[in-house]
């Protein structure tokens, strides 16, 4: 584990605590009888995160200074030691997931899903092109039918809506 990133996260925790402490001051108190009021709990949580984050940061800094090492034993979940790991791949898939979520309504599920799944396959190193094209298509169609027809969930279909309405596949 990279201790600098761990330090960064501890600092982020402290900042979150500080932000909660600052924002709590603007919470309006209610009119009902309330011994400690709506601010007490946020103050306590803010203080916990702020102090805890600072303690974790101080501990990490002290160890970094004492040992002079940036790579320290994992405190979280290790990667599988037999295979290379890439944070870039995770980041790429997270970004395309966010893009997918943002275009799901305007483009519709049937148009937005296949490229999302196919891109994720490519990111994971899949190079069988027929597989990369076929699985997303089959997956998209089958899940659309399952959710929209069997589970009665309104799945957005974007520009295909007029066609689907004409075919009677969606009612409004």
């Amino acid at each position: 584990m990279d201790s600098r990133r761990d330090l960064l996260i501890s600092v982020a925790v402290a900042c979150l605590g500080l932000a909660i402490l600052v924002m709590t001051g603007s919470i309006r108190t209610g009119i009902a009888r309330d011994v400690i009021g709506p601010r007490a709990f946020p103050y306590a949580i803010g203080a916990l995160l702020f102090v805890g984050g600072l303690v974790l940061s101080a501990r990490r800094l002290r160890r970094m200074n004492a040992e002079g090492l940036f790579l320290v034993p994992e405190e979280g979940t290790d990667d599988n030691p037999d295979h290379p790991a890439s944070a870039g791949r995770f980041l790429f898939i997270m970004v395309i997931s966010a893009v997918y979520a943002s275009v799901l309504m305007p483009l519709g599920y049937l148009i937005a899903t296949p490229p999302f799944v196919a891109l994720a396959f490519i990111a994971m190193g899949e190079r069988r092109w027929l597989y990369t094209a076929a699985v997303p298509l089959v997956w998209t169609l089958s899940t659309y039918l399952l959710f929209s027809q069997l589970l009665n969930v309104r799945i957005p279909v974007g520009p295909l809506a007029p066609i689907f309405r004409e075919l009677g596949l969606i009612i409004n």
Partner: protein
Amino acid sequence: MEIFGSLVGGLGQLGDPWLWSYVLIGTLVGVIGGAMPGMGTTLLYGMFLPFTFVMEPHHAVAFLLSISVGVGFGNSIPAILLGIPGTPSAVLTVIDGHTLHKQGKSGLALGASFISALSGQTVSILFFVVLIVPLMDMAYKFLYPELFALYLLGILAIVSLTGDNMLKGLMAAGFGFAIAMIGLDPVNLTTRFTFDQRILRSGVNLTAVLIGLLAVSEIFRSFRQSFNWSVPDGADLGDQKFPTRSEIRGMVPAAMTGTVVGTFVGAIPGAGATPAALISYQAAQLLSRTPEQFGKGSVEGIAANEAAQNASNSGELIPTLGLGVPGSSSMVLLLSALTVQGFVPGPLMVSKSPDLLYAAIAGMLAATVILAATGWFMSSVMLRAVSINRSAVLILSLATVILGVFSLNTRIIDVAVMLIAGGIGYLMLRYGYSTAAAALACVLGGEVERSLRLGLNLSNGDPLTFVSRPITATILLVTVAILAFGVYRHRQMKRKMRASDNLDSAKAMRSARAVTGSEAE
């Protein structure tokens, strides 16, 4: 409520063909998912949770529990035949089961796992009923101070027993509380942390947050590595002879030890299947006539381990349904499913809706029956589950949870919340902040604050009310004891790791987590 009445109620639900259909699907999903390394109960719950919202509540409970039952058995198949634990709790099955497989006794190992999983599950259902009914009868004695103490116990137990760094666990819980504070204040109904956004007035969608923290985080973490599990060329299934009667008789004491330990350890919030399996294994070794065989292909070792894993399913349900305090990540998701269905978590939940208890009993019993009928056949077929394309499983799991969370309210904002929670959960997993503690604090945060404030209001602001009442004082004492145990365990683990480079249990679990994923219980 009577113990006998609960059992009859559970058996009564077995007449429902829809329940059997859902349980059949759930058990198969559980066995297949359990056989795939990295796919544990929590991830499967995350994937299938949205489907439960169209089910009746009792069907949803039975369906989700049948997944747990399936996983409890499925994870032993690759552990025995390939030496790869399906979930961390199966790591000890690798040691004895895979050794037996290499000795050409695969049938004995798989049979021991099969019989112990079934017996552990069945007997633990009786323990579950015997333990939960008195808890439910006590529920009416729980006023706000007791509720506060109870919720605090649940959260601090998870902080204490999960993860290696308790302070990070506490920060994770604090983060969960912070999410729970968004929206309307639970007593005065004034808005907090809404940034004047109408959409935040009712808070963030907790189900989306929980699926993000518990399931998507693990999927994101798995995306870091691209590889496939494979069945080695020429891997044979060994002999597939079912164990003989005398062999079965020999494993009964160990399986019973595993069942008792598994149920009780599973009932401790934060403990779950892995510690249940580890403690049962040690207990069975202590009671065994051949303790030297443990680790070298002991049938008793497999029996204790497998029985404990399945028994812990029933154990985890005791605080979840009996008190409204989920004992593990998967139970947080189960409770979340019930919350979406309109149930309010708390000690009165099952007392007011005993159907949930009956459904839990029926679901676990039906899953055990289905496992008994199909498990032996599946043990050889499911070996193929290991070689399913890992990347495809991960990508399609992510696509499923996105569609599932979107279908909750057909709102993109829920998907965005889930992805953000998944990203934060990924960092938490990587840097040792317990996602289970954050998720539990998310679920119970509002109730903790409400019971604290209403309790103080009712006692005119006297905080002594929270320590002077017998039930509250007892719960708080247990909380302190669990915290002290957590500190002791943390220090002991640190000392061990400093002192020895050998593969101690902590390191074994760490390496198992690397293979199977941290939350893959």
